[in-house]
């Protein structure tokens, strides 16, 4: 599973996203930095915002594709 698949999963979960990016932090295909800017985050605590991202990426998190995930979420203010 590559960056494209992760982006696809995130676009599916955050169809309104203004900014959405996945970066391979280490070049090894398993340490990722995800940034998402979406209306879905508004009014939520950071914990609940990150939970939405974890939910969207549940499959690659569970099967070990993602070894490490850094998350930056933003609401659409």
């Amino acid at each position, binding site marked *: 599973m590559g960056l494209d698949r992760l982006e696809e999963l995130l676009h599916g979960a955050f169809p309104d996203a203004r900014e959405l990016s996945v970066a391979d932090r280490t070049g090894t295909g398993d340490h990722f930095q995800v940034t998402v800017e979406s209306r879905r985050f508004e009014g939520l605590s950071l*914990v609940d915002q990150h939970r939405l991202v974890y939910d969207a990426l549940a499959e690659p*998190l569970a099967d070990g594709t993602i070894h*490490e995930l850094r998350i930056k979420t933003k609401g659409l203010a």
Partner: protein
Amino acid sequence: MTELRERIQTVVSDEPVALFMKGTPGLIMCGNSDRALRALRAAGAPVTAVNILPDPRIRQELSDISGWPTVPQVFIRGELVGGADIVEELAASGELEQKLEQALGADYRRPQPEERVVDVLGS
């Protein structure tokens, strides 16, 4: 409930600030655990640390309790505050200190030489 799960739950509920991490504050085995610990230290948090590495069941039970898939995990008075990214973000904005003050009182920065380490395997 397994004995291990009960011990983890007790740390989460009873410790003012619980940090589940890879390694210990004296021997950190993961960059994200390091980031979380640094942010907590900068805020003066009285940290109780649990090393999840000695047994994979610790991580499993912890994630079952919290519903959070990754490590580190930080709890203040039983409430999940988040992982390294969130704790860093809250520390940078000053919200972490506010949270600690609200949960533990204005004098939460008690002088302490080093973090307490709890062994949930009970060995």
